[in-house]
């Protein structure tokens, strides 16, 4: 039996029936990583010895006492989330030698559930990018679509799940960085409600948008991981108490009209239409919903995000951690360090954000974007008075080829067109694989009101069976 292809539930069943133990599971994955990951490039570091040790501990404990809900389940963690004592690069050369001094909140929770960590996963530098081509170390390949990018920035987390190099992974999503690569790699990816999952120990990119969430083989697995990591953490002042919500007996689904308009590839439209038709036959209530301001989401996002990036990444100056270039004085040390160790796209966004926040442009760009943010969030609020969930394609195109968009930053940004609005509004959204188009993965995105992840899972499980 190939253990690496199993879901969390299937591995747990195997443990219960004593078909294999946690050590067997960890060994199968480590073997596969050695064999396959040279080609895929999903991992930046692999914890070969530590993973076996932790798995053995789980096997020993299993005899003696009850274990956590993810006991012996092997996972990979995006390399912008800290595991104490392990290298944490955020995919950037500037943090090449950085060792995490403490655990991220989510890592603490997974440890408590006796999860086995296989290693740290590759990403676009500082989670900035939509193709996995901007990693400061090496690009990530798409295991499900030869010659195509895996999406980004959680390229490693998506490719690792798709390529059976871990059972689930954690990624971060600022404008689509979990959902878009999940869609391109044919796996499930969840962007959680803003504040629902602790970001303590996540290397910040754009703090009013960043959120951690799971990538998994199916909706059920994503739910199991979400339940393990959610909840208030005193170390993250934006995290909040859990909210109980009701799940409707019959879901009302809104098809977003604007998500089928300009900029959406014909093949995506056709594939999406077919899925909607299938749902119609299943006695699910469907109506068209208009989000008139959604089309402004991307422009709004590129102001708010770059502004926050320019401020969050100011800390990489070669003084307190990371790499430092040699120069004659302190000021030149800053200039040289940032020139030598930050990547091209990261610099571009720092520059744009600096411009938008600079004297004379603040009102015209940043303040206006914050007001548009209110308008977009209200669009969603109104929509959720009529329907329980919104449905749209996750991405405007199918996975694209390596190098296809790297020369034109704006064309790369367009890949986030349909995922960005959920971050702006702070609401949860999930990407679930639809039927492949021309042999390529294709994601369907469902969006729910804040704190309604449970409904995404409930309907997602119905959707997977159709």
């Amino acid at each position, binding site marked *: 039996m190939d253990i690496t292809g199993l879901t969390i539930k299937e591995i747990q069943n195997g443990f219960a029936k004593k078909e294999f133990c946690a050590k067997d599971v960890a060994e199968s994955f480590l073997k596969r990583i050695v064999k396959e990951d040279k080609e895929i490039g999903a991992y930046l570091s692999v914890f070969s010895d530590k993973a076996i040790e932790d798995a053995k501990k789980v096997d020993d404990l299993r005899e003696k006492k009850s274990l956590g809900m993810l006991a012996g389940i092997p996972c990979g963690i995006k390399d912008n989330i800290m595991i104490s*004592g392990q290298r944490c690069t955020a995919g950037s050369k500037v943090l090449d*030698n*950085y*060792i995490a*001094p*403490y655990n991220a909140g989510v890592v603490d929770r997974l440890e408590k559930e006796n999860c086995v960590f296989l290693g740290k996963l590759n990403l676009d530098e500082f989670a900035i990018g939509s193709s996995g081509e901007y990693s400061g170390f090496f690009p990530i390949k798409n295991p499900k679509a030869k010659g195509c990018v895996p999406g980004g920035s959680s390229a490693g987390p998506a490719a690792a799940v798709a390529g059976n190099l871990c059972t689930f992974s954690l990624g971060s999503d600022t404008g689509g960085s979990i959902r878009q690569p999940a869609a391109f790699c044919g796996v499930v990816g969840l962007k959680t409600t803003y*504040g629902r999952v602790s970001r303590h120990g996540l290397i910040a990119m754009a703090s*009013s948008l960043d959120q951690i969430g799971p990538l998994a083989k199916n909706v059920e697995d994503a739910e199991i991981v979400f339940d393990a990591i959610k909840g208030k953490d005193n170390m993250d*002042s*934006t995290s*909040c108490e859990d909210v109980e919500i009701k799940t409707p007996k019959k879901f009302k689904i809104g098809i977003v009209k604007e998500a089928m308009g300009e900029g959406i590839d014909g093949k995506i439209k056709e594939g999406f239409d077919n899925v909607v038709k299938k749902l119609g036959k299943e006695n699910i209530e469907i109506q068209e919903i208009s989000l008139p*301001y959604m089309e*402004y989401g991307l*422009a709004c996002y*590129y*102001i708010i995000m770059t502004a926050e990036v*320019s401020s969050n990444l100011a800390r990489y*100056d070669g*003084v*307190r*951690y*990371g*790499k*430092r270039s040699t*120069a*004659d*004085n*302190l*000021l030149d*040390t*800053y*200039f*040289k360090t*940032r*020139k030598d160790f930050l990547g091209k796209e990261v*610099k*571009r966004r*720092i*520059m*744009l954000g*600096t*411009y938008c926040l*600079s004297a004379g442009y603040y009102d015209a*760009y940043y*303040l*206006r*974007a*914050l*007001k*548009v*943010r*209110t*308008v977009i*969030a209200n669009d969603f609020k109104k929509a959720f008075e009529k329907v329980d969930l919104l449905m749209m394609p996750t991405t405007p195109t199918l996975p694209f080829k390596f190098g296809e968009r790297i020369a034109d*930053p*704006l064309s790369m*940004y367009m890949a986030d067109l349909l995922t960005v609005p959920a971050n*702006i509004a*702070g609401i949860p959204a999930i990407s679930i694989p639809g039927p492949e188009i021309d042999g390529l993965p294709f994601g369907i995105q469902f969006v729910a009101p*804040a704190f309604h992840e449970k409904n995404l899972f409930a309907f997602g499980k119905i959707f997977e069976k159709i």
Partner: protein
Amino acid sequence: MLNKEEVEKISQLARIEFNEKDIELMRKDLSSILDYIEKLKEIDVEGVEPTTHSLDLKNIFRKDNPKEFKKDLLENCPQIEGRHVKTKPVF
């Protein structure tokens, strides 16, 4: 379109050194992104409150429990002297 001096000024503010060729590329890239962002001017935002944050949270405090100083924090510094971070002089 941004001019060369504007891009140079932003690079000074952002503390990133660029060569002539990169300044020119940056000028082109930033200008095309800014053109796209202009789109936002189409929306009437008169009287709309700005949203800085999607949660309405205020004054979140926790107990300030001192913990033992961790040596690994210092070990990440490019240069240290004793228990201090060392840099070139500020003045």
